């Protein structure tokens, strides 16, 4: 099947070459980091985690959000997502891969990575993150491979796929819950130590991920003619609207609790985010940009008339994605360290090398995604669209009915 990715237009190859170029530059930067140590980053004793771990956190959300397509399609039999489901699964695969890469580049001793397996420590949330992320990757690879090759051959997907699909749904929720637990269980960091962190992570994930998926679908339609259908885009737009509204609500809850209680160690972090602390205003313009974009996006998304216009929906999705990237990919992690538990206000901004390595990982994700989508689009475009969608759907319904009858007995 992969051979479909080896033939393509000039545009396709130029895009791949660009991505490979970015990856190559990032790789050089990573070699520098490997030989000199993490001193080449902007990190330090007061801000020991930064850009890398923040990107990891954000991308876990994007990966988890595939469930917003998979759940309605497989559990609720929502046919309109038929052409989108596999795109969501592939997006999850690319995102989880990026997550794992971001973890590796953040490690001081990547050569000892298997110590985490040789000396498993269930009391550490990192252990659970390793289990859940790798499990999620395996699940998505198995599911998308099995369903897709079955579909291509025009046969029913093997029986073991269905339970895996069911399992992948809570599993998606678990990857982001565990990632939130990574932060929310630390007494040393009051900014993160809030029970609402996991739900907030999920809400922002279920807004940012589907927003990205909508943009990708619109782009695919324009570039390749592969159309997931108006209905699918609309429904996903509604999901983005609800998730974004809930996310903003959660942020306001956090702000209220911190500022009304007036406990300095809770309040200072929010002050740092939105007004700056002791002259350190590095995140202030970003956070206000994020806030303004969130409001604009909500207005566009919550007004059905505006949301139903595809170009406005695209703008809204872009705004959601950027707003949430700033919130989670910049603000969330760094602010946990500022001020420090000793009350100091350190400065952190990623170094050039850090940014280049980060970009290379994003390029690697884009490369994986491009290749997977190329295969999907090429295979599906060969046959009349309605036909395969109908067939795939029919197979699923048949199976479910059979199961229902079996359960009834």
């Amino acid at each position, binding site marked *: 099947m992969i051979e479909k990715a080896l033939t393509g237009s000039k545009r396709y190859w130029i895009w791949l070459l660009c991505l490979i170029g970015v990856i190559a530059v990032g790789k050089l930067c990573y070699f520098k980091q490997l030989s*000199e*140590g*993490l*001193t080449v980053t902007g*990190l*330090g*004793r*007061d801000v*020991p*985690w930064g850009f890398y771990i923040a990107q990891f956190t954000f991308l876990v959300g994007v990966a988890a959000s595939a469930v917003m397509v998979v759940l*309605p399609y497989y*559990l*609720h*039999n*929502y046919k309109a997502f038929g052409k989108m489901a596999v795109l969501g699964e592939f997006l999850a695969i690319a995102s989880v891969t990026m997550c794992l890469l971001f973890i590796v580049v*953040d*490690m*001081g*001793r990547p050569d*000892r*990575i298997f*110590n*985490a397996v040789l*000396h498993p*420590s*269930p*009391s*550490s*949330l*990192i*252990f*659970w993150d*390793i*289990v*859940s992320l790798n499990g999620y990757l395996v699940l998505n690879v198995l599911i998308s491979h099995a369903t897709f090759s079955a579909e291509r051959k025009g046969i029913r997907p093997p029986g073991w796929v269905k339970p895996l699909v*069911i*399992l992948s*749904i*809570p*599993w998606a*929720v*678990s990857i982001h*819950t*565990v990632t939130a637990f*990574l932060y929310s269980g*630390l*007494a*040393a960091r009051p900014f993160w130590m809030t029970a609402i962190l996991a739900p907030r992570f999920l809400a922002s994930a279920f807004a940012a991920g589907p927003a990205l998926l909508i943009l990708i679908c619109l782009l695919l339609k324009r570039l390749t003619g592969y159309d997931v259908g108006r209905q699918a885009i609309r*429904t996903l737009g509604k999901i983005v609207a609800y998730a974004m509204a809930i996310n903003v609500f959660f942020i306001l809850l956090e702000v209220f609790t911190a500022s009304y209680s007036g406990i300095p160690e809770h309040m200072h972090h929010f002050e740092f985010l939105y007004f700056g602390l002791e002259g350190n205003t590095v995140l202030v313009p970003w956070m206000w940009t994020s806030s303004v974009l969130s409001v604009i996006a909500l207005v566009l998304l919550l007004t059905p008339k505006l949301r139903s216009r595809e170009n406005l929906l695209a703008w809204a999705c872009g705004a959601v994605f950027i707003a949430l990237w700033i919130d989670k990919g910049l603000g969330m992690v760094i602010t*946990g*360290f500022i001020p420090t*538990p*000793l*009350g100091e206000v*350190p400065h952190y901004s990623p170094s050039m090398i850090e940014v280049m390595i980060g970009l290379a990982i994003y390029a690697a994700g884009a490369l994986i995604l491009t290749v997977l989508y190329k295969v999907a689009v090429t295979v599906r475009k060969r046959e009349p669209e309605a036909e395969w969608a109908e067939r795939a759907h029919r197979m699923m319904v048949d199976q*479910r*009915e059979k199961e*229902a*009858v079996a*359960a009834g007995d």
Partner: protein
Amino acid sequence: MEDRKPDAEGAVEKDVSRRGFLAASGAVAIAIGCGGPILAALASARSSTKEDGPRWAMVVDTRKCEEKGDCMACSLACHQTHNVPEIDSKKEEIKWIWKEPYKHAFLGQEAEHMRHGLKELPITVMCNHCENPPCVRVCPTQATFQREDGIVLMDMHRCIGCRYCIVACPYGSRSFNWKDPWPRGDDNEPVDSPPNPDFPTRMRGVVEKCNFCAERLGTDQGPACVEACECEALIFGDLNDPESEVRLLLEEELSQRRRPELGTNPHVFYLV
């Protein structure tokens, strides 16, 4: 959103089985997403120290320490003994024992009109060798662990450099080797030789911290910092020994600890 056309008799059953799926999914989600980590958290909340046998602790008499102003003897001795490099960057420095102004060491306890100069008074700080160390709980490889005598140690050969322990420590007591602490020449030998050949040097990419001089406790020596302190402001001993100096001091005097409200149960005590 849901497809609910009552077109066939199977519809009800379908719904039931769907609900069953959802319920099962929910159960699995709770099991994977929360159950495991929560059980693990409960299990790890127990300390691994023993009731009998020594429980090492340090008392810092800040009144005595104050006498000598900016004395750094303890820090120098410790860093010499443990080959802690001097790094000329606040961002990357490595510290096992050092001084923090009172307002930082005891954040939130400083008041506007407190004893003159106390707010800025340098307080000697180090790893607290907590009874419930958050760093040990979060370490993904058990590279940092607690001995039965309460000392929290680092296995610097196992550490993968994830820095989760630094993130979890409420005292800023842990340092990371952002670069090679003893830069090597072409022959792969350190350019400046580390001062103490009997103590291992580290590589870049691992975390380190105060070890209460665990390597010296087996011998007759006490911790290097205690030995170096001319003011006798650092007192080290076994809390489980009712006759020990630390025990007697704590029973006589009013002491305080850093961030006791976090439940870490620090074993460095301050007489202020």
